[in-house]
């Protein structure tokens, strides 16, 4: 088969001296879906950025359709027919979905002005064609991360690239959406396109990839046919040790309700009812999973619980004490932490050091400051411990967050939030972009917290994660609770599906479901 892309002996050294790709060679055959897997920081994104012209390699060659190419910018890449969906989405936050879709390729009116109507039509058309729903006239900054992800994918598809690079496109998609995306990808393949696909979800890799390249520690370890490998093999090649995929279920001892939500409603700026009289409890010793298709109110719910958004109506109490109207600081001090859905926007300050990111919620507490003075020595020590404990790949505590790989940035956020030892943990996509090995660690930490009597609220697009960890599950649809599963051990992702899509509501069934 023809090779559409071939990279040979790529060397990439970042400005701070980190070698991210070392003699990396990869050959992608035309008309295949080629997965690239590897631990956090293995160099996957770096390699893709080089192919797409965002980063420049110091050594090595790239051939596209047999010809040697010099890709100096994304513009060059797009021109020769390469498209890319980035791990950290690169959309203009102040522009609408439609404007973002056509950016760089705008339909014009009178040869000068953006034809907004036309852009909207194009967006709807593309959205229809590929089965990913997006609201054309909403600004990107007002959308939950999962919807942004859809926009970014559609944008790349719309460009009609021959080689499409997808860097963790499914990390915040629900299984249903992933299904739709995969159908699209298979269709594209049928049309003769080639796809490079990065994911930490190995079942996805098995499901869709023809070939798999495994990277470890800035090198390519191996490239094989996907059919030759099991998920287990891949994980082992990636990490170099064994990993468990079991649902771990310790006997739970449920305690009192720590976090209690009653009749919570939220009407947004556009007068849309986003949350509709939600009521639920999160009890000590349990993980309450929140399942749902992105955009059904999860983002707003989480922001309200953590004090970042004010609800229109309802009550939230932690151990009986009211949380509504309190500042995020006061809420945190009552014993609540928050792993946000978008690590880049809320979770970190990219430009500054790991240390300064670690102390965000505790810099004013004893041990980190004395009076007004920050105790930098102790802060550095604390940071070193977190880096070690959470297995974060970073040069030092003074490394800027922007020099970390996506998964490692996620670990920074998780490390900070979980290490504050809160009573209530609000976790939105806590393992987003984290590799299988570290995912196991985060899951273990959440379970340990649960066993120590904490209350955990887990909102995740990853149903496997929800089913693996949760004690109980509620399904959110259109701002309301569509179903409530008391015993997770008996259900599968398939049972949740109809509720997530709003095809079924709780009243209609009995048996497994109870209120």
């Amino acid at each position, binding site marked *: 088969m023809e090779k559409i892309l071939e990279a040979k002996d790529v*060397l990439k*050294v970042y400005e701070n001296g*980190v070698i991210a790709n070392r003699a990396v060679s990869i050959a992608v055959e035309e008309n295949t879906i080629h997965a690239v897997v590897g631990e956090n920081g293995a160099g996957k994104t770096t390699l893709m950025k080089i192919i797409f012209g965002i980063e420049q390699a110091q050594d090595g060659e790239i051939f596209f359709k047999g010809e040697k190419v010099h890709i100096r910018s994304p513009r060059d890449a797009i021109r020769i027919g390469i498209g890319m969906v980035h791990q950290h989405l690169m959309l203009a936050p102040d522009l609408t979905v439609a404007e973002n879709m056509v950016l760089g390729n705008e339909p014009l009116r009178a040869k000068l002005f953006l034809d907004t109507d036309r852009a909207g039509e194009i967006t709807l058309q593309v959205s229809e064609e590929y089965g990913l729903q997006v609201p054309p006239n909403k600004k990107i900054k007002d959308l939950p991360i999962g919807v942004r992800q859809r926009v970014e994918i559609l944008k790349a598809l719309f460009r009609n690239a021959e080689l499409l690079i997808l860097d963790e496109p499914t990390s915040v998609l629900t299984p249903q959406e992933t299904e739709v995306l995969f159908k699209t990808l298979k269709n594209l393949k049928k049309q003769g396109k080639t796809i490079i696909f990065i994911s930490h979800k190995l079942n996805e890799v098995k499901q869709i990839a023809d070939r798999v390249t495994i990277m470890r520690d800035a090198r390519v370890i191996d490239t094989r046919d996907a059919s030759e490998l099991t998920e287990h093999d891949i994980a082992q090649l990636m990490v170099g040790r064994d990993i468990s995929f079991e649902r771990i279920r310790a006997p739970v001892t449920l305690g009192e309700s720590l976090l209690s939500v009653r009749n919570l409603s939220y009407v947004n700026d556009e007068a849309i009812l986003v949350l509709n009289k939600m009521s639920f409890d999160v009890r000590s010793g349990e993980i309450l999973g929140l399942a749902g298709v992105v955009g059904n109110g999860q983002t707003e719910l989480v922001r309200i619980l953590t004090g970042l958004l004010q609800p229109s109506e309802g009550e939230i109490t932690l151990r009986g004490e009211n949380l509504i109207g309190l500042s995020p600081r006061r809420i*945190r001090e009552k014993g609540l932490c928050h792993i946000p859905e978008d690590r880049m926007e*809320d979770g970190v300050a990219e430009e500054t050091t790991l240390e*300064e990111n670690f102390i965000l*919620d505790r810099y004013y507490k004893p041990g980190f400051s004395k009076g007004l003075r*920050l105790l930098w020595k102790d802060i550095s020590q604390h940071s070193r411990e977190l880096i070690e404990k959470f297995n974060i790949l970073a040069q030092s505590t003074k490394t800027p967050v922007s020099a970390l790989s996506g998964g490692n940035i996620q670990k920074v956020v998780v490390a900070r939030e979980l290490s504050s030892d809160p009573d209530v943990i609000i976790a939105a996509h806590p393992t987003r972009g984290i590799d299988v090995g570290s995912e196991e660690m985060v899951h273990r930490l959440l379970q340990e917290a649960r066993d120590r009597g904490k209350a955990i609220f887990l909102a995740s697009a990853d149903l496997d994660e929800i089913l693996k960890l949760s004690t109980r599950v509620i399904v959110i649809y259109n701002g309301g609770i569509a179903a409530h599963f008391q015993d997770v051990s008996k259900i599968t992702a398939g049972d949740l599906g109809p509720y997530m899509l709003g095809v079924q509501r709780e009243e209609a069934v009995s048996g497994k479901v109870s209120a």
Partner: protein
Amino acid sequence: MEKFLLKYFTLIRVIIAIGIGIVISVFLIYLTSQEPGFSLRSFLLGPFLTRSRLAHLFETASPIIFCGLAIAVAFQAKQFNIGAEGSLYLGAAVGTAFAVSTNMPAFIHIPLVLLIAGLTGALWSFIPGILKAKWKASELVSSLMLNYVAYFLGLYLINYHFRDKEAGFLVSFKLPETAWLARFIPDTRIHYGIILALVLAVLVYYFLYHTTAGYEIRSTGFNERFARFGGISVFKVIILCQVILGFLAAFGGMTEVMGIHRRFLWQSSPGYGWDGIIVAIIGRSHPLLIVPASFFLAYMRVGGRVLNLMSDVPAEMVMVIQSIIILLITAEAFLSQWKYRITVRQAERGGAA
């Protein structure tokens, strides 16, 4: 060698930028002057050649340091308040008014006058702060507008209420000696203001990098959503940093009045607030870098003045030359490719081992 280059890259970059700026200046001076050699010497060496010019360098740097520090505090929180000029002007006017109408021993008079000036500036700068924090009004616009208001208010205060009619110029009464900042080098006007400026540079540095409030300010600057997310009161930060800005600028303005002129004689705004913006940019908003940056700008200004007085180079060309040099220094990306190549070579060497 290469390690050394990497370590001092920023410094080396500034030196090279200055070098290039000088080459361009030489070229421009040759173009416009009949006696280029002499003109060039006036510009580059002029500031060092006489005692009074050397003193002038220090006198000029002093208020610029205050304003640079002021702006830097706001810039660190990404608050683009450019109101140092207005706070300085109004603060100095009110401080002067207070100084000339009171009488007390120097050891109380001096700190009190400085404090009153500083608080006036702080209060003035509180306005764009609260407008931003509460109603999201751009501090850039409001502080700019308020500069004009401050100017006319200050002018009104001095010209209508504290004007010395005997002076023959539009100036305020002379400050009582108890409110003078002493000059400590004979035959110059270098006064204790410069010492205060240097001390404040260290204090502001300490405040920004070693205190919790400084952390709050910088975190807000890095990513406002992040700060909010972690429980930092962004509202407080926005106001705090602008109040500090106003205080520092007005404080600096007052030292200038108390040490140099000893009366308020600015009929037009002196422009230190604008120079403060330039040095804050050159010094990357770092308090300790603001000091050399201010001396450099003072050097440019004094050199320009000498050039203007002594040679036939037109004043406009002097401005052009100054601006080119400043532009080169402030350009972020200048030489970054070069640094990058060295890093790569270093890493490869390390990587191979």
